């Protein structure tokens, strides 16, 4: 194999590269490079003007050094000089250099653009191509400004050579992508469409890429391309393999062109014209038929090219979603691929089937392959193939096979890659909720999820199970019992403790009759996990304890003792300390009635859309987003208290952003009526209207009811406070002037967004009071 290059040699470069390769260490390499850089620098600065060959050699060396990974900060001028030379090789190197080492120096850019302009108008096709390639490689805004009007002209001019047309088409495409505003539609657009009929297949190939991109942004302008594309496609598909000569790739006629045509057709709905549509359907059927024929060659390239066209045709069929016959055939074809020897084909078949699963025509057909897919999930060696299988199971899930699929996904989860566990957990949670007919199955599934992959069970998932348990009376007892049993496992995940603590706190009474789960047993079980848990969980458990005191008076003494001990009431965490102190006090001074009212059972949550879906959509993944959306829009979901989960969840997203509508700063109306969606730390109150009048179980901090009367004598103090917000007031008065500051303190650990305040002045005060809002200092606690 030649170590010496063809053509012009450039010995010095080859020697340099050998030297670098022979360096034994990184330091030696850097030393050699620096030596060379110094050499080149001095040559460039030298008195003697360098000849073209030397310049070329040095610029090439610089390029090599750059591509090795070192920074180069000179050589651009010399490269630009090379650009303007008339010698092809020098030009080539110059262009390569500036395409790779893009420089934003405006003077250089001006010179480069000049050189390009010269080459474009030189009428020498090789030079024109070089210039066009450079523009396409760099595609900067400055180039777009300089050339965006010129290139369409070159593209459609009659005397442009084919090779130049190809380069011009793709160059224009590049410019359009980076600076769409500079490429204006004009009379060239209709002539570009006619390039589809060009004799030269290369021109058609290049033009199609351009047309596909343009038609996505301007569909009406280019819609004449559809019929042209169909006729071209049918000519290719029905041609014998010898017709297209060199455009036949391993016995497959023009695979790239065919795929591009099929892709172009996916930008438009099915053709309205009957004749065109008929031809297209015929084409697609031919492609499907050919897949069944024996292969003309054993080479993998042949099968890849043939199947590439097949898969693209199937994508088009799925996109149209209107020919049931074709859809079913496509599904069957993919089903065959599911068990093909080649891993690539199995992978692609699984991926394609995901989209098929959401079409109503083929959904049933896809479901017939469930056993194969489950088998793939269990036995495929390649993790990416297994992942596609999991995606497909998710896509094909419906009421008839939900239990089976969820069970399979759960067992897969036990051994799944860590990187995909969170997504799998979300999917299982969504499926379990959506297709639950029997909610005890749902509870079991989620608890299993927590058991298997507790670390990856996000908050949304276990909030959801609690919401559902609260809202459905029939499953509360079952949930309490199951959770109790789950907690007895020697090592249980913290999320399980959270769920268990909450559920036992609310519904422990339903199982208290059984001596094995008597109140004290329940309490001891929970408390045994207490010291293993993080602060938020402990806070939740403390709330559960006070609920126990209410539910089971016989436990009062035991629990009070726990609350009383120093590790609780002197806990260094303020939240825990506060809860311990307040619950202790509450339990001692409140009468049973008051206690019962304060710790009343949690009312049903208002209907919300699933935040889990929103979270899944946020995760990137091929099956994740599109399938869920299609599912939701095409099929009926499961029911939660008569409501259904639909689409993106703006309210939960709002909750996670903790946006607050403005609480009125009306001094005379302490309890603001505006509901706020905030996600505070305590369990389950995600969906509770925190500021609403009927405050539920969580005992709020003392509200300064008589607070504002104090300000008759005092200037400063806290005007209003609850778990989320503290409003403080500070005023100063001098003679007839007074100044009042209102401070809004955020007590949560979540930032308030869109927090606004309004001040309303009753009556004549308006003319007497000036108010100004200082921009909030958005600090979090």
């Amino acid at each position: 194999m030649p170590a010496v290059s063809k053509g012009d040699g450039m010995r010095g470069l080859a020697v340099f590269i050998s030297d670098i390769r022979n360096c034994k260490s990184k330091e030696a390499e850097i030393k050699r490079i620096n030596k060379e850089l110094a050499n080149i620098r001095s040559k460039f600065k030298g008195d003697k003007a360098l000849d073209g060959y030397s310049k070329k050699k040095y610029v090439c060396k610089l390029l090599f050094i750059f591509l090795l990974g070192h920074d180069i900060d000179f050589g651009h001028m010399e490269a630009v000089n090379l650009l303007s030379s008339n010698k092809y090789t020098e030009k080539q190197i110059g262009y390569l250099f500036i395409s790779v080492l893009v420089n934003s120096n405006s003077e250089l850019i001006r010179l480069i653009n000049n050189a390009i302009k010269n080459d474009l108008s030189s009428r020498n096709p090789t030079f024109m191509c070089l210039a066009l390639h450079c523009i396409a490689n760099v595609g900067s805004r400055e180039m777009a400004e300089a050339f965006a009007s010129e290139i369409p002209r070159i593209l459609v001019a009659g005397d442009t050579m084919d090779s130049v047309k190809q380069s011009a088409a793709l160059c224009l495409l590049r410019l359009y992508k980076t600076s769409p505003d500079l490429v204006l539609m004009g009379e060239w657009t209709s002539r570009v469409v006619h390039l589809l009929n060009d004799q030269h297949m290369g021109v058609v190939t290049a033009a199609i890429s351009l047309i596909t991109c343009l038609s996505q942004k301007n569909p009406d302008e280019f819609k004449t391309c559809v019929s042209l594309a169909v006729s071209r496609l049918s000519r290719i598909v029905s041609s014998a393999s010898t017709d297209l000569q060199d455009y036949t790739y391993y016995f497959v006629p023009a695979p790239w062109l065919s795929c591009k045509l099929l892709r172009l057709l996916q930008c438009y709905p099915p053709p309205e014209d009957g004749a065109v549509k008929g031809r297209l359907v015929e084409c697609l059927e031919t492609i499907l038929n050919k897949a069944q024929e024996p292969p003309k060659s054993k080479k993998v390239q042949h099968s890849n090219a043939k199947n590439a066209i097949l898969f693209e045709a199937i994508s088009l069929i799925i996109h149209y979603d209107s020919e049931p016959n074709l859809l079913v055939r496509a599904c069957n074809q993919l089903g065959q691929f599911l068990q093909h020897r080649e891993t690539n084909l199995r992978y692609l078949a699984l991926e394609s089937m995901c989209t098929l699963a959401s079409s109503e025509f083929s959904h049933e057909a896809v479901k017939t392959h469930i056993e194969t897919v489950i088998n793939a999930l269990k036995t495929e060696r390649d993790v990416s193939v297994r992942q596609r299988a999991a995606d497909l199971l998710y896509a094909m899930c419906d009421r008839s096979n939900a239990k089976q699929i969820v069970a399979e996904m759960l067992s897969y989860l036990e051994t799944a890659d860590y990187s995909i566990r969170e997504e799998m957990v979300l999917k299982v949670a969504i499926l379990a909720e959506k297709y639950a007919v029997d909610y005890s199955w749902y509870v079991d599934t989620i608890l299993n999820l927590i058991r298997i992959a507790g670390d990856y069970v996000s908050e949304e998932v276990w909030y959801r199970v609690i919401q559902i348990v609260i809202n459905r009376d029939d499953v509360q007892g079952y949930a309490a019992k199951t959770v109790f049993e789950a907690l007895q496992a020697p090592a249980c995940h913290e999320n399980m403790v959270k769920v268990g603590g909450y559920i036992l706190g609310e519904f422990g009474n339903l199982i208290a009759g059984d001596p094995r789960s008597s109140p004290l047993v329940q309490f001891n079980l929970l408390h045994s996990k207490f010291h293993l848990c993080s602060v938020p969980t402990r806070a939740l458990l403390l709330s559960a304890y006070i609920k126990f005191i209410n539910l089971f008076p016989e436990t009062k003494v035991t629990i009070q003792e726990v609350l009383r001990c120093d590790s609780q009431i002197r806990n260094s965490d303020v939240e825990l300390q506060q809860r311990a102190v307040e619950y202790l006090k509450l339990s001692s001074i409140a009468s049973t009635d008051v206690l019962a009212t304060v710790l009343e059972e949690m009312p049903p949550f208002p209907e919300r859309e699933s935040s889990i879906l929103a979270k899944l959509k946020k995760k990137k993944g091929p099956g994740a987003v599109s399938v869920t959306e299609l599912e939701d829009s095409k099929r009926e979901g499961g029911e939660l208290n008569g409501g259904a989960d639909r689409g993106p969840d703006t309210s939960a997203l709002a909750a996670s952003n903790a946006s607050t509508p403005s609480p009125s700063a009306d001094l005379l109306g302490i309890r603001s009526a505006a509901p706020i969606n905030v996600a505070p730390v305590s369990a389950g109150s995600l969906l509770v209207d925190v500021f609403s009048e009927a405050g539920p179980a969580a005992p709020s901090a003392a509200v300064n009811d008589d607070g504002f009367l104090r300000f008759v004598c005092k200037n400063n103090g806290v005007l209003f406070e609850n778990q989320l917000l503290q409003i403080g007031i500070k005023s100063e008065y001098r003679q007839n002037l007074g100044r009042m500051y209102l401070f809004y303190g955020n007590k949560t650990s979540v930032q308030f967004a869109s927090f606004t305040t309004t001040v309303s002045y009753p009556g004549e005060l308006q003319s007497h009071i000036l108010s100004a809002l200082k921009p909030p200092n958005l600090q979090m606690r």
Partner: protein
Amino acid sequence: MMRFLLLFSRQGKLRLQKWFTPISEREKKKIIRDMTSMVLARQPRSCNFLHWKDLKIIYKRYASLYFCLAVDNQENELLALEVIHRYVELLDKYFGNVCELDIIFNFEKAYFILDEFLIGGEIQETSKQVVNRCIESSDMLQEDDSSEWYEVELFG
């Protein structure tokens, strides 16, 4: 469209990098690191496709070189495999039994050949003959204007 094409050896040394969209140097280095570690970690009998961020990665090993092509999510994976294969064929025709050393010592030629085949992330010409003719005619031009002694290669 294609986003980038990387060629690297089994030890992770980069032999060619072609970027079809503007990316900062730092970003490039990170991508190179990610790609080499991801691809080199793959088991021998796995499929040739990977998902990475919002792109599809198609890779194939030819002798000691890994060819790694990143494409948009809607692109056809099998065709991308054949794009890689076509490029290898072109290199092979040009260098005659191409090997990694050829690409190391004639890196600029590898870029020129690539430019005749792919532009702006799209295929420019799918006929092997036409591309070869373009490359060979450029070589002719080189021989015309070069004043140094050169090796003439006889090709049919």
